[in-house]
């Protein structure tokens, strides 16, 4: 029986490691390569930690398996298991080594953390050109872009824009357009409860906290639509907060804002509204006699 249990405890880490090795080939893995530089740095950290814990995991499991089997063999005879307690040297080793590892991780990740979370580190050009203010609410994302002609000279000017909408701001909902290829800043707020801005493929996740306007910086490397969800359970309609981040090259992004402006200031006559935002379900009334045709 003791060998059975020893084998069970040895078997499961083997299964765990094997499944970890096989999973990527079956596409049961992480959500693909990050599409933002900060995301790649976060991925690097993640994989570094994954390697550390994998080595530690395999090492400790081998040691445990050895002890189990050795103990099973040693107690085959009439003898009893030897009870030992307290090894100063061992205690020191398994305190100092993990502490060293943790300290290494703690210091090693500081730069990445600071680049993402400390806004004083954001490039000034990005801070002075906020792409949008995103307001989460139950259960959607309302977006306000500064007019493309609006240039901010100082940070207090940006703060003033965040405090007070301006007449030529552009509004949208649930689809955030951003330019690719440069670090950009958006400002996140919520008009009710706590939400979280989460774009998995960019590795960007930030809580929206009532009463705060929180800047988020990121750069999108490749154009494309990216899934954008709420990552903080915000109420019964949490799942409805599915949205899209659309990253486009600079020219396309500017063209989008122009189109948005035309649409928003459409008066139905001047041709402002040449671009229709919503393709519609056509369908006039059915001609009579369909019933006949069905027979």
């Amino acid at each position: 029986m003791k060998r059975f249990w020893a084998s069970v405890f040895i078997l499961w880490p083997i299964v765990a490691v094997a499944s970890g090795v096989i999973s990527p080939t079956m596409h049961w893995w992480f959500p693909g390569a990050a599409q933002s530089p900060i995301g790649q740095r976060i991925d690097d950290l993640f994989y570094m930690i994954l390697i550390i814990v994998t080595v530690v995991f395999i090492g400790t499991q081998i040691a445990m398996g050895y002890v189990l089997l050795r103990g099973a063999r040693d107690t085959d005879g009439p003898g009893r298991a030897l009870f030992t307690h307290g090894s100063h040297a061992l205690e020191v080793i398994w305190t100092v080594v993990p502490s060293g590892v943790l300290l290494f991780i703690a210091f090693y990740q500081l730069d990445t953390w600071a680049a993402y979370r400390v806004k004083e580190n954001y490039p000034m050009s990005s801070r002075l050109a906020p792409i949008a203010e995103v307001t989460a609410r139950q259960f959607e994302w309302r977006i306000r872009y500064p007019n493309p002609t609006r240039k901010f000279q100082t940070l207090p000017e940006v703060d003033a824009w965040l405090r007070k909408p301006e007449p030529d701001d552009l509004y949208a909902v649930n689809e955030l357009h951003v330019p690719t290829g440069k670090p950009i800043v958006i400002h996140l707020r919520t008009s009710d409860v706590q939400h979280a801005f989460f774009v998995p493929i960019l590795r960007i996740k930030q809580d929206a906290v009532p009463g705060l306007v929180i800047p988020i910086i990121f750069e999108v490397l490749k154009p494309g639509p990216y899934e954008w969800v709420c990552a903080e359970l915000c109420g019964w309609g949490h799942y409805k907060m599915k949205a899209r981040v659309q990253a486009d090259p600079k020219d396309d992004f500017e063209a989008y804002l122009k189109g948005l402006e035309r649409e928003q200031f459409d008066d139905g006559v001047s041709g402002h509204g040449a671009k229709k935002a919503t393709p519609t379900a056509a369908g006039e009334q059915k001609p009579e006699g369909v019933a006949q045709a069905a027979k």
Partner: protein
Amino acid sequence: MFSGLVSSPARLAAVSAAKLGLLSSLVAVLAVSGCGESPQPKFVVGESTLKLYRPAQRAVEAELVKDFGEPNRPVVWQKLPVDFGAFDGVVEETAQNFSDPVKIKLTRKADSKVPMAAEDLRGAGLIWTSGANSDATAWDQKGREVHLDYEVERYDPETSKLAVRVTPAIAGEKGKLDPPKAGDKFTVLGPVLQQGHKLYMTHCEHCHGVSGDGKGPTGGYFDIKPRDYRLGRFKFTSTKSNDRARRDDLVRTIRQGIPGTYMPSFLLFTDEEIGPIVEYIRWLAIRGEFEEKSDAEFANGQYTADDVSQRQKGGEAREAIETALENYIKSEYPGVADDLADRIGGSWTAAEQPDALVTPKIARTADTADSRERGRKLFHSDTAKCAQCHGPAGKGDGPQTEDYQVILGTNKKRTVPGLFDDWGNPIKPRDLTSGIYRGGRRPLDIYRRIYSGIKGTPMPPFGTALKDEEIWDIVNYAMSLPYGSGSGVPEVNQSKIASASPVGGG
């Protein structure tokens, strides 16, 4: 303390094995059986129907089932201006059994235009138009599909294989069924509505209710009530004041949401999703209005429960009333119901016509200080009377909001001060300084709100009372209000710009 365990490991193992076995068999049973068939959604009988005298009530309910069916098995009534969706099909191989999947060829009927996912036909009605199972009596003289005998069990667009089954409601009643043969023709009916129903039940029903009465389970918690479609009235439209909503209006509302309310944006819906949803909502609205108007007909004939008891007190014999009612239901009501469907359907058709659309005759007046000043004067004038409700500063606190209003269709005043909408809910005039525009923030949207009013609310239409220039002046003034110096800036209370670095994870 481990002696017990050590002494009888076998017993322990046996006990845990028994427990484990019980648990896993329970899980297995649940997994196999599932949670059972989910209950079939049912239309709720309307409040005005419940007020009718019982036989009249039953007549209305029966008529509704005949004309509209049930939520997940709608009756296709050609007369209604609803794109139910239709495909013609031909069987291309002969099957062994009736329910075998057979290769078929499908063609969408030309008059069905609403975008839909063509591969999702499951649950749609099916009528054999040739072959052994064909049924020439599938349609009644009014163009209603009356034999809801078959439906699509599954359809695989890759292999073009379709399996048909007898509608669950009458399963067992059908005798021997002939397997489909090559060359048999059929029509698939109502897939658009079927898809609309499925999507509606997933995304809309929990607020707007199975019947579209705005009484879904989550709808009750809101201070701003979800739309009750049954008046056929939608607030934010592009049509004239007496016209219904266009499909485009509903599409826009669903895509953009209604800011300032609990209606969120469903921007990520594809055209194939939104088309069927809009069709289903229109169908629900028509059904609801048909029910209310039917009830009104009976109420006109004094057949509400209250009327009947009054009449009995007044000396009429119950038998006489019932006989008269029975005669009415038999001889007149079918015609009345037909007319109602024509009238209601006609009004939805009319809304899709170009002349229902409100388009300004002149372009927006330049947004100058002069124009705003003219707008401000009109805002306070006796012609437009905007300030009566929207208040002197546009904050939505005009004197009418504190007055006792006359109840619609009566000369009695309400006992509660304030404004109410047609659904009987208290309603506030828009605070124009908030910068939130429920029906959209385009100048065109605000023009239309002024021109046609907001349907179902005390906001009246000004299309005839004001000239286009005047409407544009008011638009310019109203749109300047959120940015006026001093009060009314859309600032979030207690909100401050984060001075620290971002916090929190997710």
